[in-house]
């Protein structure tokens, strides 16, 4: 490229590119990257919005390690994620396979499975709370008809309350991941199944040798998205139990909201946020490395 004019064209294009990029990049820097840096900084301070942040070093982190409510929220978050993530993925895959088969009304069922992803979890959680109400709830009523109803209602006991918010979490997201798996299933060439059939493979063998390896891209993406969504759980807990009973459903985001924002303990809340962030990053990295090694390309 010896011509000066080419440089001008390239320069003009670079200027144009930056004009297109600048507004979005600036907004993201100000409202995503900067708050991240600021969270890290505030976690080393004591700050309540009224006075400027005061540097306290590792004080928040030291307090956090000995704080039962942080340990509790951490355990609840990990428990929630450890149950909801694999259950959601397994159900989504099973549903995708069932909804890939031919049967009457398939389109309607696909839509019905997907609709919970579109609607507001907070709003539907009000309905879930009513359905489980100890006195007036329809589900409580049905459960007691078969002798299964918890006496004070499912949301009043720690174990069943956690199970209920977990079930709602699965219900909300399973349709979204089902769609991703369904797209993956539809992109598997059918001659692979025919070849397996000729080799006399059973249904289970076909699933393990063809379906699962060829879905590894979707599985990786779905696992990471489902795990991140689980670690961030908030809506149904806020509405159905508000972290109770006896903090048995209080997760890290619920705790950040209660301590960090409602009680204006910005410094301490930021330290808890950093724990949440590290948890999510560590988990995504582990999953990425795990699946990265097992990636199948063809």
């Amino acid at each position, binding site marked *: 490229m010896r011509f000066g004019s080419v440089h001008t064209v390239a320069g003009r294009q*670079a200027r144009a590119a930056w004009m297109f*990029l600048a507004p979005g990049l600036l907004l993201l820097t100000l409202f995503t990257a900067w708050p991240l840096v600021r969270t890290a900084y505030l976690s080393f301070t004591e700050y309540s919005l009224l006075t400027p942040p005061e540097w306290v070093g590792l004080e928040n982190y030291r307090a956090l390690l000995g704080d039962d409510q942080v340990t509790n929220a951490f355990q609840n978050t990990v428990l929630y994620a450890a149950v909801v993530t694999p259950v959601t993925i397994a159900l989504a895959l099973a549903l995708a396979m069932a909804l890939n088969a031919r049967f*009457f009304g398939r389109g309607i069922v696909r839509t019905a499975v997907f609709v919970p992803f579109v609607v507001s*979890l907070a709003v539907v959680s009000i309905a879930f709370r009513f359905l489980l109400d100890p006195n007036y709830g329809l589900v409580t009523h049905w459960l007691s008809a078969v002798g299964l109803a918890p006496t004070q209602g499912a949301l009043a006991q720690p174990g069943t309350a956690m199970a209920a918010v977990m079930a709602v979490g699965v219900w909300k997201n399973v349709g979204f991941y089902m769609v991703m798996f369904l797209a993956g299933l539809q992109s598997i060439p059918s001659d692979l199944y025919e070849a397996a059939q000729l080799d006399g493979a059973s249904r289970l063998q076909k699933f393990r040798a063809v379906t699962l390896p060829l879905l590894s891209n979707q599985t990786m993406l779905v696992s990471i998205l489902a795990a991140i969504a689980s670690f961030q759980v908030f809506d149904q807990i806020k509405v159905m139990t508000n972290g109770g009973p006896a903090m048995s459903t209080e997760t890290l985001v619920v705790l950040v909201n209660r301590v960090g924002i409602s009680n204006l303990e910005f410094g301490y809340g930021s330290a808890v946020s950093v724990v949440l962030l590290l948890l999510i990053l560590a988990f995504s990295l582990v999953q990425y490395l795990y699946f990265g090694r097992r990636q199948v390309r063809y």
Partner: protein
Amino acid sequence: MTLDLSPSTHRSLRRAWTISLTVAMAGIGLLMIFPIVWSVLTAFKPNAEAASASPTLFPQTWTLENFTAIWSAIPFAQLYGNTIIFAGSVMVLSLAFDTMAGYALARFDFRGKTAAFIAIIVMLMIPYQAVIIPLYDLVHSLGLGQTVAGMIVPRSANAFGVFFMRQFFLALPKNLEEAARIDGANEWRIFTRVMLPLTTPALLTLGLFHFQFNWNDLLWPLVMSNTIDGATLPAGLALFAGQHVVEYGLLMAGSVLALIPLILFFLLIQRTFVTGIATTGIK
């Protein structure tokens, strides 16, 4: 499976399998929409019946009183307006900025492009829940606390949206813009006249993503509004549900009215939306 089956046995086994699959999937479909169906039915029950010790699925007396009472029981029109302004503005602004940034990253070569793209990917991984304290603080120090604008502005660009649009623009044929460049059209004109008309399916998908995410969001509006008047529908209804635990019929009428626009929006562009999700999953 080496069972020796006659063709007719095989056929009837197949039919039995299809019938049981159909029945099982119909059951699953009903289970998935049950909470929504129950909400709709309960919204039509008189309050005494909605909070009855022997509840039924269907109303024994149908009434519209909940749908008229909700507008005065809480500032429902105000909540509705806030939600439409919030979700609508975020959708429009974010679509504009995401599309422009995605276009720059996909169709231009310039210094700093790789760095900018990596920055977008890193920001894609930061959940807003984890940075909500400084976000709250920042919006207040900009003087936008307790305003709908304060809720909108931090959401007016979205890292996922930029990434999504970049992927879309990358997949378009090369040299689409060359002819226009040779004709001497300026870059803005090329973007709006040549490229934008091709992006409709991507914009619909991303638009519904943004709209439903913000329409449904609970934490951000809850944090950003001290009073029910400044809240959006999910936050307002959640606050109301926290105070008035027994007005079931009323709350369900509010819930149904809050859910309807989104379900309609989704049903209208269902095909585009689901294809959009499916293709993001593959790439």
